[in-house]
Structure formats: C-alpha cells, structure tokens
C-alpha cells in the first residue's frame, strides 16, 4: 500500500497543472447548480464570473506549468518531457482565449457547466501529452471527448445543434472504440501497457508479432485520424461545425487536432519504429500511407472548401486541409535534416491554433442574436460596421492562407523546408502538393476577405453591437500571429526541444 501512495505522491507534482484544472471543474460542477433557481434562472451576468474563475484556474495551472520539470521522467504513468511542456503551454494559452470566446455563447444558467467542460477538455489535452501508459492515454482521450459532447449540446440552439452533437458523439465513440482495439492489439503484441515498456519490447525484438503490430498501427491511425479530421475520416466535420456555436467550433477546430497529433506522435514510433527512425531509400509502408493521407486530406479539404457558403462549413473544410498540412510534418518525421518535420508540425499546430481560434473568436464577437454570422453574406460590409474586427479577421485569414506577415507563413515555410530537405521523392511530392494547396486555399480565404471589404453592408442591418470580450480575444490572437511572425525563434526552440 505504501508504495502505491508513494507512487501517487510522486506523480502529483508531475500533473499539478491538470490537478488544478480538474479541481476547479469539480468546484464548478458542484456549486453551479446551487446558483440557479429551480426554474432555471440565474443572476444576469453570472456567466462572467464563471469565465473569470476559469481564467484564474488557467492562470494557476500556467504558473504550475512554468515551474514544472521539463526533463523527461520515463518511470511511472506520466512523462513530462519537452512535448508535454509544449502542449501544456499551448493549450493553456489558447484555453484562456477559448474561455473568453464562450462567454456569450452559453446562457447564465449553464455557464458553470460550460466552463467546467472546457477546463476538463484542456486538462484532458494536457494529459494526452503527459500519458506514459496506454490506459492513461485512453482515459485522457475520453476526458477530452466526453465533456465535448456536453459542451456542444449546452447552447441548445435548435435541431441543427442537436444533430451536430449526436453525430459527433456517435462517431467519436466509434473512433474511441477503434483506438481501444488498436491499443489492445498493441498490448497483446508486447504484454505491457507502458509506452516506455512497449518501446523497449519493440526495440528488443523488432520482428515479434509484426502482424499484430501492423494491425494495431492501422487501427490507431484510423481512430486518431477521426480526431484530426483527416480524409477519409473528415465527413462529420462540416455538419458538426455548422450546427455548433462559434466558440464550440473554435474548440473543435483546435483541441481534437492537438490531441490527435500528440497521440500519433506518441504512438506511431511504437507501432512502427522503423517508420520514424530511419529514412532509407526504401520508404516504410506506414510513411507512404501517411503521405497518401496527407495529400488526400489537403486536396479534398481545399477543393470542398471552395464551394461552401456557410462560414462554419467553410472553416471546417479548411481545418481538414490544415490537418493535411500537419500530416506532412508527421510524414516527414524527425529524421529530416536540417529541419525536423515533427518540430515543423508542432510549430504549425501553434500557429494554426492561434489563427483559427482567433477567427472563431472574432466571429463570436461579431455575432449577436439579431445578426448571426452564419453565411458568407453575413460578413458583407463588416469593414464598415466594425473596421477593427474586419482587419483582425483579415489578418487571421491571411494567416491561414500562409501569407506574410503572419505566423501562418512561418509555419508553412517550416513544413516546406522539412518536406523538401528530407531529400526523398516522397518529401518532394509532399512539398509540391503543399505549395499547390496553399494556392488553392488562397481562393476561398480571399473570397471571405473580399466580402468583408468590398460588399456594402446589408441595407436593414443597424450596426450590431459587438460582443466585446471575444472580439478582443480574437484581436489578441491576430496580433499574436503577426508578433509570432516577427519573433518566431522562442516557439521554434520550444518545439524543437522534443525529438521522439
């Protein structure tokens, strides 16, 4: 017994930021219902206090994160290495923006649950990066998924919302089952659930149970590709994005991707060590598969986005395309000198996250009950009504396009360098298709900008009042993309510290 308690004691300081978040979640869930009357009414403005509490919790978690050790500790259930450090910082920073973006999307009586779910999702994301055990990894994935269902459903805005939530929930459970199946095969092949143990077993006897390992690889890839919305597992994304609120879409466009890519970074080296480790002339099958996924995801995402009128649908397809860009980094892997594909992927994840959450936060800010931002035409004349919002939105859209001066450019450039300097045929094909797709994507981002700046506002629309907090959060994001373009070194160093 003592040893178990010792283990827990030893683990506590490793997951201190997550503990802070989870404790806050408990407090919110427990006290939230007491502040709402039986009729479901709450003091007006209560939601602002919950957001403030979330921000305080995130601030404390960030403080704990800053002081947490970075050196890898491979022993127990948790491993706090450079990847964990990076992902934690990223989710906590973007989580603060998300918390603010949710401010007016959920009414006062449900704000406590909404914020609690959001914090739980953040904690889950961090735990995915920290997990050093298949069981912990799976539990963390579920800690992200289950609160997501609740969070999507909380605003309760009609049938579309309900459909979106149900669709996401069913498919998410399905993908979790696939991941679990893959994990069980991996356990069967190696006899341990510890990630370090599996790696050791694979290294010890690389040929052992290769069929099992390969099946595990396929299942894990399929299950996690659902999270990152890679083609052909992308089909739920547009429907779900269309049905949910802007803030929820912001969360969906970033958190599942971060979770999926981090899990892939942890698991892929285990299932096919050769795929990531060496870059011989003979391309390992897994890498070819990843490359095919990357090209298909980029191309199909971008082509389908071209025709979309609904903003969320368009951004959903754009997020699919961006998953493709990041898959390029994953495919190239860490072996490519001088620029590691994994570091490029992590850098791009941050650049993409800031930009896309910025866009959705700005949309949330410009949305009001009288004039919802649903389709492209709702953006018309935004530059007259709210010039600052339009400018920030344009910067973010240029960021997604990958134009200077935004972090999106730097991110794409890194991926480009990584793919091209890998020196393989595959890398070159990936780099060329990356360039091609960046050109295609410019078309639909530019169309949005054109609508904002060129078309006059709709006649009857009295200038809708801005929802200030999300708009400011979005503007901060767009300023951050520009700053990150000017001074990218620190982020790159943080991303490059991790090498699997």
């Amino acid at each position, binding site marked *: 017994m003592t040893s178990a308690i010792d283990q827990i004691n030893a683990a506590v300081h490793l997951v201190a930021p997550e503990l802070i978040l989870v404790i806050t979640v408990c407090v919110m869930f427990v006290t939230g219902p007491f502040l709402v009357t039986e009729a479901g009414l709450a003091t007006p403005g209560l939601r602002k206090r919950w957001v403030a509490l979330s921000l305080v919790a995130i601030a404390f978690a960030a403080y704990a994160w800053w002081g947490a050790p970075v050196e890898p500790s491979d022993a127990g259930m948790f491993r706090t290495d450079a990847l964990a450090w990076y992902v934690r910082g990223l989710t906590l920073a973007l989580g603060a923006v998300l918390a603010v973006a949710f401010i007016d999307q959920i009414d006062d009586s449900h704000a406590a649950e909404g914020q609690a779910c959001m914090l739980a999702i953040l904690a889950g994301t961090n735990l995915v990066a920290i997990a050093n055990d298949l069981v912990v990894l799976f539990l963390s994935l579920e800690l992200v998924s289950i609160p997501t269902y609740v969070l999507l459903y909380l605003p309760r805005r009609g049938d579309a919302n309900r459909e979106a939530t149900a669709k996401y929930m069913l498919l998410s459970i399905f993908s979790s089952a696939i991941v679990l199946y893959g994990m069980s095969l991996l356990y069967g092949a190696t006899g341990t659930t510890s990630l370090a143990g599996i790696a050791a077993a694979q290294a010890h006897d690389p040929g052992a149970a290769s069929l099992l390992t390969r099946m595990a690889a396929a299942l894990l890839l399929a299950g996690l590709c659902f999270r990152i919305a890679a083609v052909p597992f992308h089909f739920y994304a547009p429907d779900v994005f269309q049905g949910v609120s802007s803030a929820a879409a912001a969360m969906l466009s970033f958190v599942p991707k971060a979770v999926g890519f981090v899990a892939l970074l942890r698991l892929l080296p285990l299932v096919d060590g050769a795929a990531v480790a060496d870059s011989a002339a003979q391309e390992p099958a897994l890498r070819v598969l990843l490359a095919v996924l990357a090209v298909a995801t980029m191309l199909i995402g971008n082509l389908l986005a071209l025709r979309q009128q609904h903003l969320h649908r368009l951004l959903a397809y754009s997020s699919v395309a961006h998953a493709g860009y990041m898959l390029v980094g994953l495919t190239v892997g860490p072996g490519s*000198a*001088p*620029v*590691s594909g994994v*570091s490029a992927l992590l850098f791009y994840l941050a650049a993409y996250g800031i930009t896309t959450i910025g866009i959705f936060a700005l949309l949330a800010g410009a949305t009001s009950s009288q004039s919802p931002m649903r389709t492209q035409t709702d953006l018309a004349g935004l530059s007259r009504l709210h*010039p600052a919002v339009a*400018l920030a939105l344009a910067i973010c859209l*240029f960021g997604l396009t990958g*134009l*200077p*001066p935004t972090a999106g*450019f*730097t991110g794409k*450039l*890194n991926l*480009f*360098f990584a793919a*091209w*300097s890998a*020196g393989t045929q595959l890398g070159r094909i990936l*780099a*060329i298709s990356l*360039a*091609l797709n*960046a*050109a295609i994507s*410019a*078309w639909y981002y*530019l*169309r949005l900008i*054109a609508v904002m*700046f*060129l078309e006059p506002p709709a006649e009857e629309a009295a200038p809708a009042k801005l929802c200030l907090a999300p708009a400011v959060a979005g503007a901060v994001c767009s300023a951050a993309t520009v700053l990150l373009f000017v001074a*990218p*070194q620190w982020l*790159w*160093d943080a991303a*490059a510290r991790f*090498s699997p």
Partner: protein
Amino acid sequence: MISLLFLLLLVPLAAGGLLLLFAGASQARSARWIALAGSIAVLAMSLSLGGQYRQLSLSFDRGRADAAAASPIRPQVEYRKPWLTLGGAAEQPVILEFHFGLDGVSVAMIVLTALLTVACVLISWESIRERESEFYAALLILETGLIGVFCAFDALLFYVFFEFTLIPLFFLIAIWGGPQRRYAAVKFFLYTLAGSLVTLLGLVTLVGSAAAGGLESPCSLPQLAAWYRDNPLSPSWQMVVFLALAAGFLIKVPVFPFHTWLPLAHVEAPTAGSVLLAGVLLKLGTYGFLRLCLPMLPAACLSVGVPMAAVLGVVGIVYGSLCALVQRDVKKLVAYSSVAHLGFCMLGLFALNSEGVTGGVLQMINHGLSTGALFLIVGMFYERYHTRLVDDLGGLANRLPLMAAGMVFVSMASVGLPGLNGFPGEMLSLAGMFKRHPLYAAAGASGLILGAWYLLTMLQYVFFGPLKEPVHGASAHSHPVRDISLRELGSLVPIAVAILWIGLTPQPLIDMIRPDVEAITQLYARGPDGGESVAQVSPDRTFATEPRP
C-alpha cells in the same frame, strides 16, 4: 545609413498604421495630408540615402574592383540580425535573418519607389472620394513592402516582402478600382500568388541544398551567391531550380504568355494603383531574376534563361506593341506598352554581359518613370472626362495645352527619344543582347518602331486634330475643364526632372549600378584563359560543372 534605411521602412508603415487607426470619414482631409507628409519624408530620406550611398561608393569603389573573391552580390551597407534558426539541434541549421542591405540597384529602386509614391498621393487627392484614410494607408503600407523587397538581402526575407506587396495592392484594386475591380483583383492576386509559391519551392531548394552542403548562413544572398559560384549545382538541377524561380518572376514581370492578368489589373486599378503596379511592382519580377537567377544559376541562365528570355522577350515586345496599337482604351494601351517595355528589360538582363544587364536595370528604372507618368496623365484626363476611349476624345491640346505637352514629353521618353531616359536603357539592353545573339537584338529593335507607332497614333488622336470632348464629361457641368492644376503638376514635375536628368546625364546612375552589375556579369565573363569577351565563351566550356558532393 542603416538607421536611415530603417526609417525608410518604418515611416511609411507608421504613417499607414496611423491612418488605419484613425480611419473615419471625417478625417479625409487630414488623411491626405498625413499621407503626403509621410511620402515626402520618405522621398527626402531616400534622396539623402542616395547621396550618402554615392559618397560611400566613391570611397569604396577601388576596394571593390579588385575583390575578385568577393560574392557576386555585394551590399555595401549591411544589417543582420537572426530571425529564425531552424533545426537548432541539427549540425547545419538553416538561419533566417533580418538581413537588410543596400547596393546600387536597390538604392536606385528605392528612390524610384519613393518618387512614385509621392506622385500617387498627389494624384489621388481628389479622385479618391471614399474611405480615404484606408486608401492612403494601403498605399503607404505598399510602399513599405516595396522598399523592403529592394533592401532585403536574405532570400526568405526577400520572399516575405515580395509576397506581402500583394496584400495592399489587392485592396487598392479591389476597393477603389473600376467596375470589374473585384474580378481583376482576385485574378491578379491568385495568379501571382500561385506563381510565387512555385518560386518559393525553388528558393527552398537553393537554400536547402546550400545548407546541406555546409554553408553557414544559407539564406543570406551574398553568401549564397558566393557559395553557388564556388560549388555550382549540377546543370540539370540548375535548370529545375531556374524554372521554379522563374515561374513566379515571369508572371510578375509579366512576360508574354503570362501577362493576361496585367491589362485587366491595370484598367481596373485606380490611377495610384496603376502607377505603383507598373512603376515598381512589375520590376519585382526582373529584380528577382537579377538577384536570384543570374548570380546563383549561371549554367541554367545560359542554357535556358537566354533562349527563353530572348524569345519570350522579343515576342512580348512585338505582341505587346501590336496589342497596344489596336487598343481603344488609352489605359489599356499603356498597360500593353508595359509588356513590350519589360521585354526590353528581359532582353537586357539575359544578355548576361555588363552592357546588357546595366541596360536592363536602367530600363527597369526608366520604365517606372515614364510609364508611371503616362498612367498619371491618363488618370488626369479620365478624372476630367470620365472616359479613356480614344474614340471619345480628340484635340485635347487645344483645351489642355499643358497636359498635352506633358503627355508628348513622357511619350517621347517612353519611345526612347535620345536625350530622354528611355534611350540609354533600351540602347544598352539591345547592345548587350546584340553581343550575345544579334538576331534577337535585331528583332527586339523592331519594338522601338512599333512603340513609336502606337504612342504617336494615340497622341495624334487624343491630343491633336479637331477638338472632341465627351458630352457627359465635365463640360456638362457648370465649370469648364481646367488644365493641369498645381497639385497635378507637383506629381508630374519631379518625374519629368528625373526623366530629363537620366536622359541627359545617365552616367552617374550607371556608375552607381555598374559595380553591382559587373560583380554578377563577372560570372559569365570567366573564360578558360580569364578572357573577358563574353560572346566568345561557350556555355559548355565555362560551366563544365561537376555534380556537387
């Protein structure tokens, strides 16, 4: 001097930011004045920069002449600060830098940019009636981007500015342009963006293979050029990289089959947009060739570049001229004349000898001045008559003598009348090409005659003959059409002075750019016996390159 350069970058950016910050209909007047003050300050600083640079290069020249080991790209003033080091753990990191510098060509182009921007602000004074502060903000931010391109000596930084210029120009065309502005702006944006993404591929290859070869700061253009002089890529790779780089530059220039976005963009753009587009933005393409292709890829320039540039250049000259000849819209005519003039520029650059490249660079500057002025005047009479069609106008010299005189003057400059600026550039370009391939030079020379033909025809119809004014123009209003105002004169006179100055005494300008040009053409003049005659050196003997390790 480097701090002056930073001011040159910061002042227009700050002025533009200020205008954006206080964007509002009520401040239209102050917006103009802020823009004017900003652009004049930039012009003054750029002139002072030019003067200082001349002093510096005079004192420096001897040292440079014998620096045979130095790089083909030699900025005289440099500022370097690391920006992003990729692959910190790797043995050969790729270091992106904020690497700003100045050489003769960049100083000349910066002064040109500043000069044209002042003219743009003045010409837009009354013609831009809505969202003024945003307009001037876009104009000034565009100026920042352009100056940035010319002083960037880091390959990626160059690309960053190169791409960035698209954004403000997109807004300039799309918001303040003509009836088809949106289509024109989107076409311009996507076409050039697609091209420059391919250029990025080429750039990444250049940088990446130098980095893999062990070059310490592979993004710095001087070091990259020196590296590729000593360790050239294999000829087949050079060809691939050359074509990739050329994809973006050819579209930007634009050379003949890739020019389709240009007439549309020019016709739809507001006058200021046209002036900067023709005057400076098109030069980014030729400047890219000069900075990246010529020094880094000598074998490909000889094997692919010369025939491609010569054929496409000649076709562009003839085709552009013929198209200009049949245009009824004067602005479109000037747009097509740009295609022709840049053909000369390409011929000059790809003569790959000192005369030709000098001529090409001169032609870049000259075309900026004369075509910029042509667009200014076209804008002026469009403002008065709301038409640019040759059929609607006639005999304007009677009504607007000063404007007619100005038009004749810049047309002559554009045609290449000796004594005005067009002449030295075209002559040197053709002379250079004549040394390499007499046939192409002869074919290109036909463009001189065609150029005179279409411009003089236009002059004859629009400005001479019986007076013909459109009814719905300003004549329908109470006040009669007035000749050039003081403000418009202010936008034209500096350009006219520059035209005359370059035409009468081109030598100082040539002296300023020649060292940089010769540093590059040295690459092509290295005969087996160290001989200097370029025409005798066959490509195979000069660049029997072995594949790099």
